[in-house]
């Protein structure tokens, strides 16, 4: 039986003893194969993704494509290292034949994924099994996923999500999408349009053209609607867009007022946003069914960038009421706000974790920008990144990873999307066809 408890206290020992000693340490404590994601450096778990078998109706290319998505997802998480198939000793020839554990132990695979892809008409099916090599046990039941040929990558994401969740004990996140702003043109005349892609940058499609400046999209809990700010009227105003039909409309159109920074309530019924009137920016809600608008704050200071708690009962937002940008929490209906940020510098764009435990934010201090997380009482602040300009974190569905915009300096500077673990590990650029900003990570797809 194996247990990898790569806790901070073990890190020094792991470094000293090397990777093979992980097992010695782990074996003495017993338990199933497990990566515990904690702070500090974690050695990625060596995992073998056997070439997926070509089942009835499928082509070798299709099987290869699905297995590649699984391998890429696990690698991208930073928690796994896929072993090159060139090192494999015994080929998997049948989905149901017994696993030769010794052959996988010999190449130091801690886990093995086997799979088979079949196709009937437009329908693709993928089944997989996950094995703990050193305990010589299957981990959980084999599962089968099906979908249209167009959703082939999603089937790979679902397999990878199962592997990730079974080994880490964390929620899945690979089968998700990201709405973002795709950018082109020079810095002083930037063109922006809304786009959507798989969480890993694949399957990009565009939701708007770049005729009008658009900013900061937010996706609904069901993933079928997007809120964003558009300058279509010449003034910043919130619009709502249906991702299936691409139909869009202005939410609220009061002359002289500007609205931006919208966010859906967890139940999707209410839009929380900021509104500038006479130079003063405050927080409001709009009931989507009735159109009723409610003012939540009435202060001469700036109140903006609000985000709901997962239960919808509280709001975290930024305000300069103390004299500089800081983070506050208040009831979702308004009322007294409690300041939670007290470190050096300015804090903005707070986003409540889907797990409810953390707030991710942008911090500006001494000319540098950081993405950070803190507990909701403001304790245990942890900066995850540092650069010329990082901003606007958005949570992965499992609350373990955030995606954000990073802009480089200078006349030729541009924005890209990056993701990073809440441990500060595994900073990675998310590939996009053009420059990109303002990512909004969807919930796990249904």
């Amino acid at each position, binding site marked *: 039986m194996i247990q990898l408890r790569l806790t901070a206290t073990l890190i020094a020992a792991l470094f000293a003893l090397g990777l093979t000693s992980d097992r010695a340490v782990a074996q003495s404590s017993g338990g199933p194969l497990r990566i515990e994601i904690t702070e500090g450096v974690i050695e990625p778990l060596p995992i073998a993704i056997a070439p997926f078998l070509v089942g009835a109706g499928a082509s070798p290319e299709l099987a290869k494509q699905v297995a590649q998505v699984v391998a890429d997802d696990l690698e991208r998480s930073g928690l796994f290292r896929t072993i090159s198939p060139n090192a494999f000793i015994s080929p998997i020839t049948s989905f149901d034949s017994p696993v030769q554990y010794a052959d996988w132990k010999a190449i130091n695979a801690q886990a093995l994924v086997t799979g088979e892809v079949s196709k009937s008409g437009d329908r693709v099916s993928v089944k997989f099994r996950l094995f703990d090599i050193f305990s010589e046990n299957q981990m959980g039941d084999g599962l089968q996923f099906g979908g249209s040929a167009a959703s082939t990558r999603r089937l790979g994401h679902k397999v990878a999500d199962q592997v990730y969740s079974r080994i880490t004990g964390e929620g899945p996140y690979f089968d998700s999408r990201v709405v973002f702003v795709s950018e082109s043109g*020079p*810095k*002083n*005349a*930037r063109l922006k349009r809304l786009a959507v892609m798989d969480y890993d940058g694949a399957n990009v499609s565009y939701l708007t053209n770049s005729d009008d*400046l658009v*900013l*900061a999209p937010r996706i609904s809990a069901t993933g079928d609607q997007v809120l964003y700010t558009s300058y279509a009227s*010449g*003034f*910043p105003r919130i619009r709502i867009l249906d991702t299936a039909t691409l139909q869009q409309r202005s939410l609220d159109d009061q002359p*002289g007022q*500007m609205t*931006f*920074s919208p966010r859906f309530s967890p139940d999707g019924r209410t839009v929380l946003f*900021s509104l*500038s009137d*006479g*130079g*003063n*920016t405050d927080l409001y809600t709009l009931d989507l069914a009735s159109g009723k608008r409610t003012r939540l704050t009435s202060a001469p200071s*700036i109140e*903006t*960038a609000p985000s709901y708690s997962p239960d919808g009962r509280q709001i975290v937002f*930024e305000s*300069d009421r103390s004299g500089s*940008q800081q983070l506050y929490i208040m009831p979702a209906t308004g009322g007294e706000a409690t300041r939670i940020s007290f470190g050096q510098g300015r804090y*903005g*764009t707070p986003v409540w974790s889907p797990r409810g435990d953390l707030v991710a934010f*942008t911090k*500006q201090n001494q*000319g540098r920008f950081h993405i950070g997380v803190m507990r909701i009482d403001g304790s245990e602040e942890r900066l995850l990144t540092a650069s*010329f*300009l990082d*901003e*606007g974190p958005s949570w992965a569905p499992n609350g373990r990873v955030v995606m954000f915009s990073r*802009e480089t*300096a*200078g*006349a030729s*500077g541009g924005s890209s999307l990056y993701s990073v673990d809440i441990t500060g590990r595994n900073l990675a650029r998310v590939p996009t066809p053009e420059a990109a900003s*303002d990512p909004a990570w969807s919930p796990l797809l249904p």
Partner: protein
Amino acid sequence: MTPIVRLFALCMVLLVAGCASNRNGSGAAVDGLSGGAGAGMSGGVNDPTSVAYFQQSVGDRILFPVDESSLTAAARATLTEQARWLMNNASYSAVIEGHADEQGTREYNLALGARRASSVQDFLIAQGVSPNRIRTVTFGKERPIEVCSDEACYAQNRRAVTVLAGGGAGV
């Protein structure tokens, strides 16, 4: 000299409408929300009722210190001239664009730009310009006019620009 002053000097030397048009052409992409009302529609910079004259001789923009929306003495002087011009040229309406430099988060800079535009609006109204002739818009950090990442550029980008609309055709 600031780029604007340099440009103004260049226009004075050339004294041709083409210079003003170019200025407005690039301005349309950066600052010209209302678009249509450019220098080309009215007289050149020598015509004191023209948009070109307003932009270059009166001065269509003021600058702000870092994270400030209060008006400097220089800004008040420019805005006093703007107010006088607007009262003498009552067929124009104006949209005040508030802008921020790139040092700041997107949402905060939108709110800051709104504050800056509002400061200008309040000042012009106090000087006697009719409130119904002035609207405000914030662009936050979305439309820098200078693109370097140094204070020299940031100072030009922390601005409020008075963009005219209407003119000869009325509002």
